[in-house]
Structure formats: structure tokens, C-alpha cells
């Protein structure tokens, strides 16, 4: 491909390169080392995605165990503690290790392609984000093997149940693992978000004005802002909780004057924007897919983006609707109730606009479109039950019942996961260069759609007839059995559907019999579809000059003046940075530090508490060295001179 490749050395930095002590792995690195040291946003995106799909299966197995336990009254598939661990791990895994990283995978892979950039602004930071996410996932799941097993505190970890005072297993370490893994995952999300914001603000191709950006990139930007504003709240909450548990402070210990309410406020100030962090990327994906399969531009582009921003902004003003039953009084509950209802308006706007997009189009029902339509209908149901919960008197019955379980699974599976699967079916041809099997895709959709509705629709009714959430068992005589059995059958159908889907995604990378995709198999609209599939490591051979929104479509069907152009050729080529070990080293250091903190306390022979920070400090030193070396290793890199048609 590259007609020439040479070591990067601009005239005035030549000497610096020779002074380098530890060379960066070069252009020709392959195999495992390549994956471990890569700073290519596409490879990082793929690793994000693959790890998240793995955790999707883990969380799915936890869900199926939960459903098996609820098959009938007084079942004994799991003990109650095991059940409580399952729902804690299922919730934490699905939110932090599946939906968020899957969104991050798409952000990573696609956003630079959509704005015409060679990579994100800080490629090594991007790699650090990935490795922090991976170690956060490992830390969370390591908890299974230590005292007390994994946490049994719910994904929301309400104080004071998390206090050591109320531990039901002596020396329970589960909540500590939970705290530290969430901190690591928060770090991963923050690093990625700063990176995406900088990239989108600074690295758009010439002519790619903000109002020409694809909706998915817009949602990336909004979600990144939500993350950097929401995560500090939970970071503080978790630090305080860690101090409570480890050093006996009393932020949340009410017997010492602490305030359990404080945890709920901090958690939901994070937790509600988190809901939009989970759903907005899926909305972005669907806003890309529907125009393509209707062959029309997005109806009300500006309004869709504006309503996304409004949803994000208002997401910070409604957190207390998770706390209607905690006794906040008439004024606060009324205010949060009305604000929550208002958020339905921008959400409704999006649905109107998707339908408006299809109006007058030529609609094709390929797999991505089916998932997008599934998304709209399922999300609509979840949104409607959400409006119900916004009303305090209704919430007084729904809160912590299965009705709520039904609601947020409609939003998070019917919404977010269907949206992300839609994204996979839509963009995997771009990532792998191969078309997925349509028939298998439609089969997966059918299984998922039927299984999902069988599982979660009955839960509305179960909640109304009084089944409470987070109970490992129920008594005979409440009439819960029949509907729970239907839900359990449905959950296995859904599980099989998801498993086949994941298999299909992973095998697309290896299955050579699949049809080649070509540049633009869907006749899609946005900039990434002007590139070859799979995308070359340098993305664009020459910087594109953007003339219109939906640039790929305009190049094919638009007037001449809307066709994109290329920046003039120069002898500089495409500068590619070398790979780096230091993001991985820094993350490993952080991982060791966390492990050191988790196991720093022990009881010696005389019964005294001994604190030993050696391992934690060592980990801290390693990660500091990682950061220092990272700063010193210099730019390095090489130039590629691809030809236009090799783009």
C-alpha cells in the first residue's frame, strides 16, 4: 500500500530521536505486542467492543441464573445471598462493562472517521482508557474469589447497607472490590470523554462545521460532556464510602451522625445522567441508520441534536425522581416530578423526527433497519412507563416493584442494546470488510424481539400485582408464578438470540466466506462510507474538504458543488505515530495499586489491625513511572504515502 515509508524526523528534531532510551514499538509490530501497544483508535475500539461483548455474555449468564431462580415460588437454584450477588453483579456489569464500553467502542471506531480525522486527539490516552476499563472489569469479577464473594449491595449500593456494620459475612470484601472497580471504570470513561471532546472540537476536517457533523458524532460529544460532569459526583461518593469502610469515617454512618440520604443524592446526580449516557449513543446510531434505509436525510437534523443536548442538560435536573419515596416532602417531589415530565418532550421529538425521516422515503428492511425499528417501538414503551413513574402518586406504587424492572429493561435492552446491535449490523461491514449474513441477522432480531418482550412485558403486570424487586424468592399464593415462568422462557430465548448475535459479530472478522462489503454497501450517507472496508490504518489518504452534511450521499447524488474535495498533495504524507507500552504500564500500575489497597489491612496474631501499603505504593510508583516515560518517549513515528485510490 505505502509506496514509501521512512522514520519520522523533521529537520529540527532529528537529534532528539537518537537520545531516546526506550524505543517505541515500530510500524512493523504485529501479533500480541501490536494489540497491547496499539494506539490506533480503530484497534482500541475493536478491543473495547470485544471485551464488552464478553462481559455481555457474563452479565447475561447472571441474568439467566436470576430468571431461573424466579421460575416458581420458593425455588432453590441460588441461595438468597447468591441471588443478591447476582443482581448486584448483573446490574453493575451491564451498565459499566457492557453498554458504556459498547458505546465507547463505536465512539472510538467511528467518530474520527465521521469527522475526517486520522485518529483521536490523544491516542495514547485512548489506550490508557481501554486498559483502565479492562482492569476495572477484572477487579469487579475478582471479587467472586475473596471473602464474602462478590458484592450483595445492589448496583446502586445504598448506604448504610454498604457499611461494614451491616455486613452479613464477616470481613465482606465485595463492596470494596465494587468501589475500586467503579473508580477504575470512571477513570476510563473520563479519559475517553476528554479525548473525544478535544477531538471533535479540534480535529474536524476542513469544512466539517459543527452543523455538518453526523448525529452520531454529536451524540458522542454530548455523552462525553455528560460523563465528565456526572462522574465526579460518583467519584466523590465512592471515595467517601471507601473512607467509611476502610478508615471508619462517618459520611454515611447514621449512628455517628452521617447521612444515608447524601449517598442517594450523590449517586443519582451521577446515576440519572448515566441513564442518558447509556441511551444517547443508541439514539445517535438509530439517527444514522434510519436515514440510510429510508434514503432520506434526517428529518429536523437541528432539532434532533438540540433535543439530545436538552435531554443531556435536563438529565442533571431530575435525579431525585429516583428518590420520590425517601420522604423529600411535597415541594421537592412536585418539582422533580414536573421536571421529569418535561424531559419527555425532547424525547418525543426524536421519535417524531425518526418517523418524519421515513415519511416519503424508500424503506428497506435490512437487519440494521429492523433493529432500529425495534428500538423505536421498545423505547417508546419504556418512555411511556417512564412518564408514569414521573408522577409521584403512581411511583408510590411502582417504586422498587417489577414494574420498574420492566421499565428500565425496555429502555436499556429495547433501547440501548437494540440500538447497539443495530450499530453492529450497520457498521461491521465497514470494520471487517465483509457483509454479515442477512438471514442470520434477521433470525437474531426475531429471537431477540420475541424473547425480550416475553421476558419483560409480563413484568409490568407482576409489578402491579405486587412483586417487589430484588427479592430472591416469593411465597406461593400471590399469583406470580405463571408470569414469571413466561418471563423466564422469554429470557432464555433472548439469551440465545444475543449469543448468536455475538457469535455472528465475532465470526465476521474471521469468516472468509462472507461477501466482501465494498466501500459503501448500504448506499449510506456519512463520511466514513467514502473509505475502504476495512478502513486503512491511516484512515484518509488526504484530508477531505467537506462541502455538505451527509457527504458520502452528496458525493453520489448531490450537485457538483457539494462534492467533497481533497487537500492538495504534499511531500509530507500521512504521519503515523509509533506504538507505545506506557498506557498499558500505567494501567497495570493502577491495577496493582488497587489490589494493594484492597488487601492492605490484615489482623496480626495479637488481634491488632495492621496496615501494609507496600503493594499499593509499588503500584503507584509503577504507574507514575509509566506516565513519566510516556512524557519522555518523544513523538517518533513514520510517514505513509498512500495513493488516493488506496483510501
Amino acid at each position, binding site marked *: 500500500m505505502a509506496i514509501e515509508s521512512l522514520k519520522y524526523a523533521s529537520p529540527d528534531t532529528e537529534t532528539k530521536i537518537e537520545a531516546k532510551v526506550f524505543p517505541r514499538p515500530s510500524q512493523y509490530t504485529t501479533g500480541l505486542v501490536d494489540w497491547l501497544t496499539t494506539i490506533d483508535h480503530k484497534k482500541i475500539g475493536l478491543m473495547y467492543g470485544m471485551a464488552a461483548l464478553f462481559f455481555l455474555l457474563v452479565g447475561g449468564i447472571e441474568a439467566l441464573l436470576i430468571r431461573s431462580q424466579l421460575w416458581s415460588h420458593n425455588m432453590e437454584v441460588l441461595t438468597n445471598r447468591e441471588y443478591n450477588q447476582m443482581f448486584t453483579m448483573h446490574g453493575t456489569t451491564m451498565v459499566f462493562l457492557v453498554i458504556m464500553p459498547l458505546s465507547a467502542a463505536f465512539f472510538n471506531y467511528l467518530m474520527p472517521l465521521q469527522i475526517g480525522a486520522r485518529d483521536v486527539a490523544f491516542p495514547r490516552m485512548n489506550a490508557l482508557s481501554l486498559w483502565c476499563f479492562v482492569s476495572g472489569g477484572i477487579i469487579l469479577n475478582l471479587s467472586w474469589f475473596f471473602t464474602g464473594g462478590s458484592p450483595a449491595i445492589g448496583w446502586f449500593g445504598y448506604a448504610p447497607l454498604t457499611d461494614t456494620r451491616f455486613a452479613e459475612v464477616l470481613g465482606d470484601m465485595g463492596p470494596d472490590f465494587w468501589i475500586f472497580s467503579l473508580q477504575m471504570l470512571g477513570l476510563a470513561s473520563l479519559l475517553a470523554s476528554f479525548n473525544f471532546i478535544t477531538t471533535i472540537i479540534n480535529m474536524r476536517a476542513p469544512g466539517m462545521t459543527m452543523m455538518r457533523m453526523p448525529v452520531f458524532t454529536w451524540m458522542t460529544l454530548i455523552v462525553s460532556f455528560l460523563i465528565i460532569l456526572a462522574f465526579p459526583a460518583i467519584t466523590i461518593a465512592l471515595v467517601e464510602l471507601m473512607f467509611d469502610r476502610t478508615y471508619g469515617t462517618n459520611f454515611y454512618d447514621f449512628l455517628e451522625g452521617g447521612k444515608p440520604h447524601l449517598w442517594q443524592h450523590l449517586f443519582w446526580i451521577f446515576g440519572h445522567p448515566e441513564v442518558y449516557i447509556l441511551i444517547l449513543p443508541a439514539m445517535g446510531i438509530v439517527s444514522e441508520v434510519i436515514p440510510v434505509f429510508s434514503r432520506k436525510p434526517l428529518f429536523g437534523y437541528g432539532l434532533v441534536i438540540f433535543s439530545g443536548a436538552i435531554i443531556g442538560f435536563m438529565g442533571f435536573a431530575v435525579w431525585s425522581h429516583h428518590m420520590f419515596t425517601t420522604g423529600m416532602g411535597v415541594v421537592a417531589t412536585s418539582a422533580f416530578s414536573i421536571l421529569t415530565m418535561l424531559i419527555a418532550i425532547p424525547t418525543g*421529538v426524536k421519535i417524531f423526527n425518526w418517523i418524519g425521516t421515513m415519511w416519503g422515503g424508500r424503506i428497506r428492511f435490512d437487519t440494521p433497519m429492523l433493529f432500529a425499528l425495534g428500538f423505536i417501538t421498545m423505547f417508546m414503551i419504556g418512555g411511556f412507563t417512564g412518564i408514569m413513574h414521573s408522577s409521584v402518586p403512581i411511583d408510590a406504587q411502582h417504586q422498587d416493584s417489577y414494574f420498574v424492572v420492566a421499565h428500565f429493561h425496555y429502555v436499556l435492552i429495547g433501547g440501548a442494546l437494540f440500538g447497539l446491535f443495530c450499530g453492529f449490523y450497520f457498521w461491521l461491514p465497514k470494520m471487517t470488510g465483509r457483509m454479515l449474513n442477512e438471514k442470520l441477522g434477521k433470525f437474531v432480531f426475531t429471537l431477540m424481539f420475541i424473547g425480550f418482550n416475553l421476558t419483560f412485558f409480563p413484568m409490568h403486570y407482576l409489578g402491579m400485582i405486587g412483586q417487589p424487586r430484588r427479592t430472591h424468592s416469593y411465597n406461593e399464593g*400471590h399469583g406470580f408464578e405463571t408470569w414469571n415462568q413466561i418471563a423466564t422462557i422469554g429470557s432464555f430465548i433472548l439469551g440465545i438470540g444475543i449469543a448468536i448475535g455475538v457469535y455472528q459479530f465475532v465470526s465476521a472478522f474471521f469468516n472468509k466466506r462472507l461477501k466482501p462489503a465494498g466501500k459503501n454497501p448500504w448506499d449510506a450517507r456519512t463520511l466514513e462510507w467514502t473509505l475502504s472496508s476495512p478502513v486503512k490504518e491511516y484512515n484518509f489518504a488526504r484530508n477531505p474538504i467537506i462541502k455538505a452534511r451527509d457527504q458520502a450521499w452528496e458525493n453520489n447524488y448531490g450537485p457538483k458543488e457539494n462534492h467533497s474535495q481533497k487537500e492538495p498533495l504534499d511531500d509530507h504524507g500521512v504521519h503515523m505515530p509509533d506504538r507505545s507500552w506506557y498506557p498499558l504500564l500505567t494501567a497495570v500500575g493502577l491495577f496493582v495499586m488497587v489490589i494493594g489497597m484492597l488487601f492492605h489491612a490484615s489482623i496480626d496474631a495479637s488481634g491488632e489491625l495492621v496496615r501494609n501499603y507496600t503493594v499499593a505504593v509499588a503500584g503507584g510508583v509503577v504507574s507514575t513511572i509509566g506516565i513519566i516515560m510516556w512524557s519522555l518517549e518523544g513523538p517518533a513515528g513514520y510517514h505513509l504515502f498512500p495513493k488516493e485510490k488506496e483510501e
Partner: protein
Amino acid sequence: MTKHMNLSKFPHRIVSLITGLLLSFLGSCSRIDHKQSALDPKGLVSQNQYDVFMLSVWITIFLFCAVGGCLLFVLWRYRAKSKEEAMEVPEQMHGNSKIETTLILASAIILVILAVPTLQGVVLMNRVPDPNDQATLDKLELDKSQIEDAITVNVTGKRFFWVFEYPQYGIVTANELVFPASKAVRVNLRTEDVIHSFWLPKLAGKMDLMPGQENFMWFIANEEKIRTGIDKDGNPYEVDTQTAMPSVFDGKMRQAIFAKQAFTDEFEAVGGLFYGQCAEYCGNSHAYMSFRALAQTDEDFDEWVLKFRNAQNPNLQPIPYSPENNYEIDDVITFSDEKLGEGISRDFRAVQAVTKGQSPETKPDAWEKVHSDDFVKGKALFSSLQCVQCHAINRTGLGAKGPNLTLFGLRTSLAAGWMRNDEASLDKWLRNSNDVKFGNLMWNGEGIDDRHPLRQLENDDEKVSQLVSYLLDLK
């Protein structure tokens, strides 16, 4: 041959299984009055919550049909009918601000329709109506006295049971909230450990019990709704007050519940029995933390209060026999009965006037034993097995670690509403409560390990039966 038979029977079995499933399915989904159903409100507050809910249901069904119908129309009308059509380029329309503005305004108006009753509902849930505000009372169809004579219950949540204190009467009970059906009930909610949530679906929705904070909710039952319902066969019925709300104080409620249905029956024949549940995750045994509320007529409630007050009145407890006193008929004293064991004393009731010095020992004819031998032995065990350290009987014992067991024999349920309070269940519970309710603090609490006498009961038939007869005779 066998094989052949099995094969021929197999599809038949599947058919009957499917038919059975379908029938039970239809049977149960046509009903909405399950034990904990919020769709079967029996009180003012829950009725309001139900009404707002149904309003929201109709609104959303309308919206779903409108938007969903529109979506279906678009999908059908604009589907690409052929490969050629799929490659056509339709008009590239970017939006229509008039349509968008109209839709935004329309959705805002629909939200107002829901917002108004929501705000009214918030006020109703949080504030008992002012008894002097006749207009509001008329609107709610309440009588002034129903509010003025409201009773107050202080609910304390503990892992994993409920304490019900009646401050107006100075009595404390656990896990079964007895209340007058005609009066408003003010509920103050507190917790001594983690967060719990008091959920009484048919009467009042739920409210959390927050550590370090006192929360409030209230409810008032609707007597007429308690008297009506739908029987097991699906026919509507209306019964009189006594049948719907048998009296608790003389054990009629317990008998009626035990006689009318199995514990596992889905549909309730006793209208005055309400099911409640802890709705906030509180630990291992969260699922088992349920409770019951028993509605009573005013007279029966007063009788129950009186009986309870007397039982918990320290001045009315039998005092030891004194040879210096004269006793009248029906006076109750305690006197030692060495036949049952060393240091054991029991209650005796005078059957005739007793003069000084005529103790049950010297003049047995003048006295009768109040309780059976097993009861007395059980009572002694209750002390010697250290049960008294956590359970109060015949005293209020606020702050005790375990549920108050005063008049335990009148309770309809055991283990915080998880089982029927009969001999078989109590027997099972005493032998190994961890088997029944894993994680409960009677078995796992502070200071209890394998050496604790409670954990030695598993195979001790005699002690268990004595404890059972003691506890169930407390009535």
C-alpha cells in the same frame, strides 16, 4: 409395548399440559385482585394512586396507538416494493418546523393533563386532610370524625421484621398492624438499621424508612370495598362487616383466615386482611420481610387495644402469692410448682374466696391452674433458652432486638408474614429458623453461634412442643 404406550401418551400429555397452562394463565390474568395487587385499591390514598395510574395508562395507550399507528402507516406506505424502487432517490426533505412545533406543543398539553392530578396526589399522599376543611372532606367523601379520631402508628423497620407501636395506647406489637377500618391511620416510619420501605399496596403505596429521619404516610380504608370482592370462582360478592373483618382480639380473625383458605390460595376471602412487603433491598432476608395489616370495626379495635393494654400493663401482671393477703374469686397469683422443675412457678386463679395462708399448696381446691403444664414449661424454656433477651412478652419492650410476642397466639402469620402461624410452621421455625428464613437475625444475630441453646433445638421434640404450646396459647 411399554415404549409404544409412552409414545402415544406423550403428545397427549403435552396437550393437556399446554391446556392446563393456558387455563391457569387466563384464570390468573383475568384477575387483578391478588394479595398484594395495587390494581385492587381498598383505601382512599391507594384509590387516588390507582386513578392517576389508569389516567396515565389511557394517555399512553392513546399515544402508543397514535404514534405506533403512524409508524406502521409510514412503513407500509413507503416500503420499497422492489429492488429498483429501493435504489430510487426520493425528495431529500430536511424538516418542517410547523409540524415539529405543533407536535411539541401537543405533547406539552398532554403532559399537563397528567401533571394536574399528579400534584393533587402528592398533596393527598403527604398530608392528612384538615378536619376543619369541610370542602376538602366533602370532595374526598370523608367524615370529620374519621380524621379527628385518627390513630397513629410508629413503624420501626428492623432486619427483617416490623415493630408497630401505638403511642396513643402505649402498646407495641410486631408484624401485624391492627387498625380501625373507619379511621385515618397516620404512619410514622423509622428504622434502626438499614433502609427499608413500607409497602401496603391495597391501602397506601409505599414510603421508605430512612435511617436518622422520620418519614410519614397515611391511609384510610374503605369499609364498603373491604366488604365486597370477587370470590374464588370469579363471582362478585358482598358480605357483612363481621364476615369481612372478623375480630382479632378473640381469635376470630385467625380462625376465619385459617378456615377459609389455604395459606397458598391466591384469592382472599377475608376482606380485612391486607398484605404488605418491605420494598427496599435490605440484606439477605429482604424477600422474607413482609407484614400484614388487619382491618377492624371500631368496637373490635377498641377491644383489641384494651386486651393488649392489659396484657402489657406492668401493674396488671400476676404477682407472687403472699400468705398475708386475702384473695377474691378470679384473682391470679404466681406460685411455685416444683413438680415441673426447680424454681418454676405458675399462675393460679382463685376459684373461691381465699383467706390468709391458703396457698395452692395448702388448699389446692381453692385454686385452679391457669395454664397447661406444657405452657408453663414452655414459658420457663423461653427464659432459660435466652429467648427473652430479644423478645418481649407482656411488656412493650421497645428497643428489643426481636419482634414483640405479646398475644402471639392471636397472630395470623409467622416470621414476618412468611408463613401461617400454626403449630406445624412454628415447630419448623423453632427447630431451624435459618432453613426457613436464611439470614434471619434470630439465628445469625450478634452473639449467636453454635453454642447458643436456640441452635440445639433441632432434634429436641419435647422442648419444641413445649415452646409451641406456650407461644400459641398467648391469647
